[in-house]
Structure formats: C-alpha cells, structure tokens
C-alpha cells in the first residue's frame, strides 16, 4: 500500500468520483461522506509521499508498472510532493466547506457537483504528479473541462464567464499541446526528464524549434494561470461561480499552472536555457511588475468582494512569475513558497467571502458591516488571511514576501521590489477597508454607554461546517509561516540540483 502512495493521491479522488456518480443516483446523502473519505485518503497518501521524498529523495513511480519512456512516470521530488499535498489539503478543506453550501446553492445537482469537484482535483493532482508532458495536457483538460462546468453552475453571469473561460482556456491548452508537439519533433520523447536529457545531450537548445516550443508552452501556461494581460477570463469566473467553486478553484488552478511553468522551465528546458541563453528575465519580470500593479490597483476599484479577491489572484500570479524569472535561489524559493502559502491565504479569504455570502446573501464588500460584533471568529479567520496577504509577520505571506524581495534585491530588480511593496500597501488598504466596515457597522450610540449586554444578543456565528474550514485554513496560514523553515528546506533541497548560485545566472 505504502509503495503505491503516489498513485493513491491521484486515484483516490478519481475512483471516488466514479463511485459518487453511481451512488449519488440513488442516495444523495451518501455523496458527501464519500467525497470526504476519498479526499482524506488522498491527503494521507500525499503526506506519506512527502515523508518518503524527504527521507529518501526523489521518488519514481511507474504507472501500471510500465517503465519510462513508454509508460507514464511519476517522478516525485520535493516540489511536486509539496504542491500535491497542498492541492489535496485544499480540496479536502473546500469539500468540508461545501457540505451545507452545495445543497443550498446547487440543491438539484449535488451528486454531479461532487463528481465534478473530485474530477477537478484529480486533474490538478495529476498535473502536479505526472512526469509526462502529454499526460499533463490531458489532465490539464480534465481539470479545465470540469471547472468550466463547475463555474457555469453559478449565476447566469457565471455561465457567460464559463463560456469565455472555455474559449480562452482551450486556446491556452492548445498552445501547450502544440509546444509539446514541437518538443516531440526534436526529441522524440514525451517524458519530461527524457526530453531534458535529449535536449542537453544533443545540444538542441540552439534549435529554433525548441525555442518555438518554449514560447508556445510558456504562453499557453500563462493563459491558463491568468498572467496579466492574459487574465481576462479569471475575474468574472471566480466572482459569479457558486462560492463552493470559487473556494476550490480560486486558490488552486492558477497556482498549479505556476507549478507547471516552473516544472517546464527547470526540469524540461534547462535553467541554463531559460535563464541564461534566452535572457528574457528582465522583460518577464517587468511584465510581472505590471501584473502586480494592475492586479492590486484593479482590486482597489472593486465593490464586489469576490471580484476584489479575483484581482488579488492576478497580482499574486505576478508575484510568482516574477519571482521565478528573477533566476536566483531566493527568488525561486520565494516563488515556490509563495505558491504554497498563497494557496492557503487565498483559500482563507475566499472562504470568508463564502461565509459572508452564506450569512447575508450579499456579494458586496459592504456586506461585512458590523461583522466583528456578530461573527468574531469569522473575522479572526479573515484577519489572519488578510495579514498574510499584506505580509505581516509571522504569517506565511510575510516570509514569502521576504524571500521574493530578497531575490529581487539580489538580482537588482528594484522595480519588482517596489511593486511588491506597493502591492502590500494596496492589500492593506483593501483589507482594512473591510475591517473598518466590520468594526464600524453597528454604531453604539455616541460611542459611550455600556453595550456589553446588547452585544451578546447579536452574536450569530456561521455554522460549524463552513466556519471550521476557515479556522483550519487560518491556523495553517500561521503554521506555514511559523514553520516556514521546514518547507523552505524542502524547496532548497529541490533547487540544489540546478546550481543556481553559479555566477552565470547573474
């Protein structure tokens, strides 16, 4: 069993999905426990995998026993293991959140909803674990198709957004597929590690075909991760989807695509190629700077809570793309650590938005009026997520920003450093605006007079199934921050092989 852990990570949600379809036809109530069970298995297997990786180094798993390059290989190093654990954990948390929310928001489609949820998770986990470039495409489409459907389950605006997403997403995925085709022409292989070996061994890095492949893959991935200016699909999709959907997709989809970008840049093409030979670092980091600024400033202009968060995702993607292209260890550590931290902080704030919607039925930021008195625990959860996004120690967001800024300074990208700081301030403004609403909503008469007795009566916290996920996520954000060393050491172990300290990366 333990040897099969990497497969279980992926197969548990997949098989559960099949089961949920069958069982759900007759016993709708059984769906949720099944989902929970399947995802818990996935999380447990992911934990097991990461322990194995930390202990014994890179883990190679051959799907069905077929050795590479024929079969599909899972080669699990520190990077995938971390991201896989993150993805499965978030899936589990948002599944818990969906317990009461799905019946409320999509009451007629419970089993379908859960099936799709599990399939998205399968696709995302597959993309993280697989070592096969074409397989990645298929899983990309699996997760994309299901997420179109999940988004379309929202309001009618969501349907329009889902259509747009489907068109743009297909273009992105097709670009990726085309890029893989070009790589295949040159190397005759689809296994990522094999491609890399061939590229290096035969010195194919000078070939134009490889260059075209790199551009196609990068642009394809950028479209899917909503890297500005390719982000048009994102805001509406996450704003109008059911809250359960945006809690699941908002944190995960873009981050998994960032993972794919890192994997492609480092493992498939070589860092020497992507960073030194192409030498696009400057341009891309400046693009990231624009993404960060546009994302944060657009967020300021929003009145809809989830739309504001969606623009924050655009900014955060800029953080990570910029961090990766800084081409130094600190930048990459920052980007990867931020990837993990950001998943949880985004989840935290999306869960908050979901709870606000559940309690008030409103989407606007102003719906948070007076919540400090009514729902102190929820607000505490938001506070942790928000402080993390702003970058206040000791939350996770502070440390990712620390490494990213360190990377920016080390390679002399002052524009990037300034953009990060400005974006922090923008987020501070955003969230303190919410805090203000929440704090000043109910106005005690003239500020004086004992309202203590009155406070108790208004106290109405959300139900446990939607509150617990928020509390859990908030504590994870704190834990990831406080114990960032252990995560960072896994990341640095992973990065050692690329020898980024080499002076040629300057």
């Amino acid at each position, binding site marked *: 069993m333990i*040897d099969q852990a990497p497969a279980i990570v992926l197969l548990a949600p997949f098989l559960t999905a099949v089961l949920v379809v069958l069982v759900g036809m007759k016993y709708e109530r059984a769906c949720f426990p099944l989902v929970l069970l399947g995802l818990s298995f996935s999380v447990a297997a992911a934990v097991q995998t990461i322990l194995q990786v930390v202990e014994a180094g890179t883990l*190679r*798993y*051959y799907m*069905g*026993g*077929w*050795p*590479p*390059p*024929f*079969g599909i290989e899972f080669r699990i190093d520190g990077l995938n293991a971390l991201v896989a654990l993150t993805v499965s954990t978030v899936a589990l948390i948002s599944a818990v959140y969906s317990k009461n929310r799905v019946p409320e928001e999509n009451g007629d489609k419970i089993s379908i909803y859960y099936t799709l949820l599990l399939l998205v998770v399968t696709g995302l986990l597959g993309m993280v674990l697989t070592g096969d470039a*074409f397989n990645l*495409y*298929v899983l990309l*489409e699996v997760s*994309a*198709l299901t997420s*179109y*459907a999940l988004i*379309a389950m929202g*309001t*009618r*605006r969501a*349907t*329009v957004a*889902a*259509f747009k997403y*489907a*068109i743009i997403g*297909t*273009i992105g995925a*097709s670009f990726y*597929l*085309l890029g893989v*085709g070009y790589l*295949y*022409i*040159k*190397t*005759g*292989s*689809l296994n990522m590690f*094999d491609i890399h*070996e*061939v590229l290096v*061994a*035969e010195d194919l890095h000078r070939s134009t075909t490889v260059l075209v492949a790199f551009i196609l893959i990068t642009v394809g991935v950028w479209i899917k991760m909503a890297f500005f200016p390719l982000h048009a699909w994102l805001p509406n999709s996450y704003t*109008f989807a059911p809250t359960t959907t945006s809690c699941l997709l908002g944190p995960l989809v873009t981050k998994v695509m960032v993972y794919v970008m890192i994997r492609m840049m480092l493992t498939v093409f070589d860092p020497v190629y992507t960073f030194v030979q192409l030498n696009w670092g400057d341009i891309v980091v400046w693009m990231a700077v624009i993404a960060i600024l546009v994302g944060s400033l657009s967020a300021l202009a929003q009145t809809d809570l989830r739309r504001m968060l969606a623009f924050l995702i655009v900014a955060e993607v800029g953080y990570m793309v910029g961090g990766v292209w800084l081409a130094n260890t600190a930048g990459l550590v920052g980007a990867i650590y931020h990837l993990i931290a950001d998943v949880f902080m985004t989840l935290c704030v999306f869960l908050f938005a979901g709870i606000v919607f559940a309690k008030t039925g409103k989407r606007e930021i102003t719906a948070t009026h007076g919540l400090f008195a009514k729902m102190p625990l929820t607000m505490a959860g938001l506070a942790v997520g928000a402080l993390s996004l702003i970058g206040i120690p000791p939350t996770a967001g502070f440390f990712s920003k620390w490494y990213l800024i360190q990377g920016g300074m080390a390679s002399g990208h002052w524009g990037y450093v300034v953009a990060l700081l400005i974006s922090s301030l923008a987020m501070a403004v955003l969230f303190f605006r919410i805090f203000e609403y929440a704090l000043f909503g109910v106005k005690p008469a003239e500020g004086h007079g004992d309202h203590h007795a009155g406070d108790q009566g208004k106290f109405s916290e959300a139900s446990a199934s939607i509150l617990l996920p928020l509390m859990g996520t908030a504590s994870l954000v704190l834990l990831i921050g406080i114990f960032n060393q252990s995560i960072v050491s896994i990341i640095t172990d992973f990065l050692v092989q690329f020898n980024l300290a080499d002076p040629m990366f300057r």
Partner: protein
Amino acid sequence: MELLKAIVGGMNYWIFIILMMIGLYAMITKNNLVKKLIGMSIFQTSILLFFISLAVKEGATIPILHHDQAHAKQGDHGEGGKHSDPSHKGKEAASAIEEGKEKPSVSHAGSSKIDPDRFTNPLPHVLMLTAIVVGVSTLGVALSITQKLYTEFGTIEENEILDQLKSGDD
C-alpha cells in the same frame, strides 16, 4: 525560389497554420457562440493534423509486427521499474514503437532487427486519439454551456447577451 521551397517543403505545416488562424479568427471575431465553437473545433483539429503529419515517413507502412518479428526481440530495458515484468507481451510492442521514433537518439532498448524506417510512427496517432477525445469533450461541455446560456438569455448572440447583462441586474 527560397520562399517557394519553404512553402512547398513545409506544406503540411503551412496548411495547419492556415487552419489554426481560421479557427482563431472565428473564436475571436464571431458573434454567434456556436460559430465560436466551430472555430474552436477547427483550431483544435489543426493541431491534431500537425501531430499526425509528424508521424508520416515516406514509403512507410502501419506499425504492426508479425509474430516472429516480435519474438526476435527479447532485450531487457535498461531501467526496470518497480513493477516491471519483462516478459509482458505489451511491453515488447512498446519497445517496438520506440524503435519507430524518428530520432531514436537516446537508446532505451537493446539492439533490434526491426527497421524503423519501414513503419510510420504510431505514437502521434495514439496521442491524437486521446486529443480527439479531449476535443470532443471540450466541444460537448462548451455546447452545453451554450445551451444553458440560451435558456437563460434566449439568444446565442454574444452582443445581445452582453447587452442584457449591462441593462438588467443579475
């Protein structure tokens, strides 16, 4: 002359580029959602064609091995997997496919008597089979979203939908 050579020499590539552009054009400019989806289909198909054209070799045939041919090859794979079972039939077929690659640059298997030039490369075909399935599913999902849009808005013209969204509240 050079240009002509480039065009004729890479005929397949040019055709798929043209198809792709047609598809992209339709996806971006068409107002009717179904026409957009048709564009999307053309776009995807162009990529399928591109992959298939990679597999073609002059004078090559379909890669099906006779029994004796297959039997001649019993080499072991350099990197045996945890669960690999060398005597498995399918694996041999797989290694035969490997031989059929255009660039068997890194040798993964031992020597072989099969001449790869006589067979077209089956791998792109296999891949495209999957890609076709993916494409069909994409189209299916997109069409059902379109249907949902039609029931909600009563139209599948993009501008009319946007107008409705602008005027009415959600």
